């Protein structure tokens, strides 16, 4: 993670060339029906005297016991070492490892980083192309260009005047007038026939 701060600005395309991109997935359909803890072992390394480890020491004093109780499947190691900066090292079921420096971080932040490492799958982080994934894309079947299309278009001869012209919404004033004129003529012819 620390490496990334020094990288120059790059487009997502260049980024993907180096760091890759993938679709959303979970190892062995984890979490569907049952959940298998992917984090197997976590090692908290710190120094007993240096100020940079103050947050880590606070965390071990107050919070670590709760983490260990809530996650009985995770082996927690605490490893004091003289005059070295603190870090978290997580090891996962698939053999993946992650190392995060905890230098000068307060205990609150370490709580969050522990939660982050616990939720990881152990696979390297990539840019995710799409937020969703499904093994059963559609029950009705995928869309095709012929879906909900008028069957008349399959047998029509092109160019086709009816399929090309604008769909008329309502009648124009001219058509209204002609209609009225027709009715008037009918009425007057009826009257004339009655009179005669």
């Amino acid at each position, binding site marked *: 993670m620390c490496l990334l701060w020094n990288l120059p600005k790059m487009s997502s395309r260049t980024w993907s060339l180096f760091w890759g991109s993938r679709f959303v997935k979970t190892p062995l359909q984890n979490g569907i029906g049952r959940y298998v803890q992917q984090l197997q072992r976590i090692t908290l390394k710190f120094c007993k005297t240096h100020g940079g480890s103050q947050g880590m020491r606070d965390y071990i004093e107050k919070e670590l016991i709760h983490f260990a109780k809530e996650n009985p499947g995770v082996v927690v190691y605490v490893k004091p070492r003289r005059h070295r900066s603190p870090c978290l090292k997580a090891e996962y079921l698939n053999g993946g490892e992650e190392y995060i420096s905890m230098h000068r971080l307060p205990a609150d932040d370490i709580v969050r980083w522990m939660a982050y490492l616990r939720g990881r799958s152990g696979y390297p982080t990539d840019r995710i192309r799409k937020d969703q994934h499904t093994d059963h894309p559609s029950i009705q*079947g*995928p*869309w*095709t*260009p*012929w879906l909900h*299309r008028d069957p008349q*278009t*399959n047998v*029509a001869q*092109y*160019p*086709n005047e009816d*399929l*090309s*012209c*604008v*769909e*008329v919404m309502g009648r124009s004033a001219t058509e209204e*007038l*002609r209609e009225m*004129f027709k009715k008037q003529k009918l009425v007057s012819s009826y009257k004339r026939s009655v009179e005669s």
Partner: protein
Amino acid sequence: MSAIRRVQQWATFGRMWYLYDAKWQNPFDSADKIKEYISGTHKPIYHPLNDCGDHVVVINSRHIALPGMEWERRVYFHHTGYPGGASWTLAWELHRKDPTLVVRKAVYSKLDKNLLRRGKMARLHIFADDEVPNSILENLSGQIRQLRAVPKRLDHYTDEEIKSFPRIFDWPKDYVIPN
């Protein structure tokens, strides 16, 4: 992949051929509509990485209707690259040289400016009149509706239609219609 899935794939990503009659249509408004078809944004499966554009065959591009004073006012710029190589061509001049070019340039300028633009333009087939080669006609599977109704001129009506049209008043018999 089973045979059914393979056919399903062909059906979903099959390229359709649409016809568009440009007669009496504004080419710049039409370009907005044609753009959707040749870049595939009219489909629910559209995705920027997904090559799903359709072919559009434009006919009667000679009979387009430009709005307002555009025939005289619209100017097309070209530069050969050599000193003094700039040239400005009015829309009516360009249309006289090549009656498909106004539509082509209208669509080209409406498309997104990226490397896919030439590929999308290759799916646009423009014909000056309504004569289309048979090899293209047999591909057609749909027609895009025009944006505006094509007006009908008085001399296109039959004499009967003109005579049966209701008159508000009759001219006096001795009235001379000035021409």
